[in-house]
């Protein structure tokens, strides 16, 4: 099969994956178009009060550029709060805390990111977001199936095992959660630090076999 020379898609045609309790609606662009040289996503807020950028620091060294394509949002960038009407670019270095909440209906924020100095690798969180969006919509089986598929394809990525452990824990599958979290920690000891603070594992924390 040869890949098409180009692809066209409108924002309205992109998937909509709800990914948190603050209304963050992820609209995958890279995933839809098969972009491989950099990451790209859109986030939309229909009501105008929803989160449009998760508050975070980039753990994997990506620098990110956000662009307010329509509407308006309030960004947090480091210790600053920034009013960002349509047309605003916000650039965040990897270690800088960033996040944004829409302040007008119909706000869309585009995010582009990659790690300087290395060829781009597709972020594991994309498929994790897909799986947890299924879980949030009440389809536990589809969420598990998606994460198991991801883990089978990327057995050496700790993120897949870690998030499968979260799902197993949330659905009270003790053995599955312990097995997957143990594997995640084997692959990257950083997984243990996340697990210590992760509420998803609260009910398992006192289990003698719990690895974190």
């Amino acid at each position, binding site marked *: 099969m040869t*890949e*098409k*020379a*180009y*692809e*066209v*898609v*409108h*924002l*309205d045609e992109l998937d909509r994956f709800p990914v948190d309790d603050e209304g963050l609606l992820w609209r995958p*662009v890279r995933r839809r*178009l*098969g*972009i*491989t*040289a*950099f990451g*790209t996503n859109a986030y939309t807020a229909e009501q105008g009060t929803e989160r449009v950028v998760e508050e975070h620091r980039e753990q994997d060294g*990506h*620098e990110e*550029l956000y*662009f307010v*394509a*329509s509407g308006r949002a309030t*960004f947090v*960038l*480091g210790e600053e709060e*920034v009013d*960002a*009407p*349509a*047309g*605003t*670019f*916000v*650039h*965040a*270095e990897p270690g*800088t805390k*960033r996040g944004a909440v829409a302040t007008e209906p119909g706000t*869309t924020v*585009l995010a*582009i*990111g*990659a*790690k*300087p*100095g*290395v*060829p*781009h690798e597709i972020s594991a969180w994309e498929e994790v977001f897909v799986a947890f969006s299924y879980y949030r919509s009440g389809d536990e089986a589809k969420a598990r199936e998606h994460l198991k598929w991801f883990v089978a394809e990327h057995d050496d990525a700790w993120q897949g095992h870690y998030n499968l452990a979260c799902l197993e824990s949330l659905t009270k599958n003790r053995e599955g959660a312990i097995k997957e979290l143990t594997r995640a920690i084997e692959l990257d000891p950083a997984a243990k630090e996340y697990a210590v603070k992760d509420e998803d594992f609260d009910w398992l924390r006192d289990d003698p076999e719990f690895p974190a």
Partner: protein
Amino acid sequence: MSGTANVNDLALKAGDGPSWAMVRTHFDIQSFGVNAYVAEEPGIRIVAEHDELGEREGGHEELYFVSHGRATFTVNGDEIDAPAGTFVFVRDPAAKRTAIASEVGTTILVAGGKPGEAFSPSPWEHNAQGLVHFANEDYDKAAETYEQFLTEQPGDAGFLYNLACAESLLGRKDSALKHLRESVEAEERFKESAVGDPDFDAIRDDPEFLAITGQTDTGGAGS
């Protein structure tokens, strides 16, 4: 450096084309290319026709996003109506792509990178440093910048052309004609660019300009 900027504040007018916001260089982004273009009126060619194979191009896959207004893209001869909210992703570096704005204030964001390789800026971006001086109408500084570039890359047709533009605007007729001739001899496409370029208004009627640009039968570059 983390920071913020508005696309309209970054956009610089360069010639009769769209305004150009040099987003990557503004923020010193090191992991992907990103620029934005704004067309003040309909009919402006907002994305210059190009592929990504030329010496000055980066071999990038490119993502265009129409954030405001509307444009008609042409990719490999296919016409695409692209209202605000449209993404056009050109995967194939060999694909010819261009776009014409069809509404006032049409704004297009473009991001690019080469699959499987760490990002390095496209050679053409070097030009940006000189074009800023044109936008600010500081032609002395523009000429100086392109002279410097030419010491680093002697014979570069694009740098020669822009140096000729600056010199024409400064009234330095002889050196403008000399550098334009060298540019056209290196890359014939600059002949056509010069014919429609208002930067050469001061020397347009000069017989040597007409000869260089192939508008007379009296000989000259390319004949």
